[in-house]
């Protein structure tokens, strides 16, 4: 089992939803992610997603767009993202997932990127504009080096497409909670239970829910339906509006509040099964 798989398994045994916070490399200032990662781990993060900025993030709402713009202005490159991952890895065994768009990876060279990411201690990749249809090369290069390529499943995905993604996926399935871009929302989408039920029928991989998840009550709801929760925009908003001195304390408090909400009251959660 991969480090990511083990993290989900540990959360399951502890009867709670796994937490997967997202921070953007080079945001809000160069090196911030290296301070944030240990803090997130301390606060209960099971997996950390490290965002790699792109000039044209079509799947992202205003918060992550803004973070990418700031990060690029701070001089963040793919090379620096990989170095940041390596530094985080030196100090922690937290599962690390790089998340970004395909063009910079393609430009870097798929084989070389996977080689360097694996050497940096990265455990998985998420590329939201690389659906399974286009992902063969990256999947081959990643899995040859023991990294998971994590696919997104959307509420619009047909059963045939869910099945196809489930066949080639590893690590976990990233279930997009709504039809839309990333960003904090007031409430979770209706139909989430039905959607996750559909995904469950096709895969025994852990399911993580992301897009729009921001509040403890969201995490409480997701905990009853899925195995993990990804949160990004609300965390970046918090980082954005908190002074640097207060940042780590505020982030730790926020992540702990989500973690507390993610503890399951029932031993058997709704979607649960052993994997």
């Amino acid at each position: 089992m991969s480090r990511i798989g083990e993290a989900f398994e540990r959360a399951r045994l502890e009867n709670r939803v796994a937490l997967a916070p997202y921070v953007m490399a080079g945001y809000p200032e160069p090196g911030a992610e290296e301070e944030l990662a240990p803090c997130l781990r301390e606060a209960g993060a099971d997996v950390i997603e490290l965002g790699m900025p792109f000039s044209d993030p079509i799947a992202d709402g205003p918060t992550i767009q803004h973070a990418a713009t700031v990060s690029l202005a701070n001089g963040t490159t793919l090379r620096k993202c990989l170095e940041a991952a390596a530094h985080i890895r030196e100090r922690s065994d937290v599962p690390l997932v790089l998340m970004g768009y395909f063009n910079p990876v393609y430009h870097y060279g798929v084989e070389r990127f996977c080689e360097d990411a694996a050497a940096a201690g990265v455990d998985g990749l998420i590329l939201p504009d690389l659906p399974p249809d286009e992902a063969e090369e990256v999947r081959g290069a990643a899995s040859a080096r023991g990294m998971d390529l994590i696919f997104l499943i959307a509420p619009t995905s047909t059963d045939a497409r869910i099945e196809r993604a489930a066949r080639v996926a590893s690590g976990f399935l990233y279930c997009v909670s709504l039809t839309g871009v990333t960003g904090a929302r007031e409430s979770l989408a209706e139909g989430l239970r039905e959607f996750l039920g559909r995904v469950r029928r096709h895969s025994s991989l852990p399911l993580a829910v992301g897009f729009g998840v921001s509040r403890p009550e969201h995490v409480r709801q997701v905990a009853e339906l899925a195995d993990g929760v990804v949160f990004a925009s609300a965390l970046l908003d918090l980082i954005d509006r908190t002074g640097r001195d207060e940042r780590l304390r505020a982030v730790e408090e926020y992540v702990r509040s989500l973690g507390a909400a993610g503890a399951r009251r029932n031993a058997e959660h709704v979607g649960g099964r052993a994997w």
Partner: protein
Amino acid sequence: MIQQERFRDLQWEADERGKFGRFGGRYVPETLIPALDELAEAYERYKHDPEFVAELERSCAEYVGRPTPLYYADRLTEHAGGAKIYLKREDLAHTGAHKINNALGQGLLAARMGKRRIIAETGAGQHGVATATVCAKLGLECVVYMGSEDIERQRLNVFRMKLLGAEVRPVTSGSRTLKDAINEAIRDWVTNVRTTFYLIGSVIGPHPYPTMVRDFQSVIGREARRQVLEREGRLPDVVVACVGGGSNAIGIFHPFVRDESVRLVGAEAGGRALRPGEHAASLVAGSVGVLHGASLYLLQDEDGQVLGTHSVSAGLDYPGVGPEHSYLKETGRAEYTAISDREALEAFDLLCRTEGIIPALESAHAVAQAVKTAREMSRDQVVLVNLSGRGDKDLGTIVGREEVQP
């Protein structure tokens, strides 16, 4: 002749994954893939549907004004001093540019698919105007995304779109131009995918858009091929068009791709200079990358970030170029050149004064290239130019320059 058969085995249609060679495909969020499947299926069905075809042809004739004329530009020919130059007058199509051909085709398709909400992106505003026009005609809701920088420099077209009942949404992210308007339109589509039809304006985007838009624009080349044959009793030696995303160029090139004797030349925006950020010549100076759902030639920095672009013509101001053009370049079937802002402006003046035709600044790039090409050829040869749009929309830009450089 070996030379004549160089291109015999090339791939003229996208494969089942939507690829021309290694270009094209579907690099989009999973949420959109089912919508692209639905679109591809509907397009396949309706393009062979006699009623759909008849309605499209009737609207092309009665509403757009097709076929557009082929015009022998005798004084321009004389000025160039070489091959005969013919202009395919897309500037005379309704709304003043070729963009209406595609907007009409996709609009009719959207209506048949039961999608009542249309979104579009626009750079210069020509595609936005064409889309707003078609939506007004078909009674569809229309939202156009436009970079706030482009809104500034194309005020008249913004007004036209509003007059036609469209909502124009300013885009303030990134470079605030066409590429950012496309990003925002894609984000809208991801959000409202179940009810909304994204009417893309060029031969870009994920499959099936590059093929579908090409098919709707190929009416230009089919007409022009027939018209040149009627006038000259032979095919043209060279076909010239300007290339931004590449829809007018593919429209006139495609019906000639199998005619190996016909050279295809695309004129990209050379801007101020071929330095990063100062031009938009993706095929001449770019490298292979992925943008807006397709792999294609792209202007990008050493880290794979998409570069800003510049062109005097807003319609060519785009860092990528359609996958089929990328394939035509890579295989050598078409050649691509860069025409500078200065050359385009000179060609703009030249066409005004020699022929009494005010071209769009985009089309002026094609005119500049055509004059250069014709000059090197003999008087019995023929150059066909796609005059893709008229220049009324650019008069503000021209007046501004006159004021700066009296």
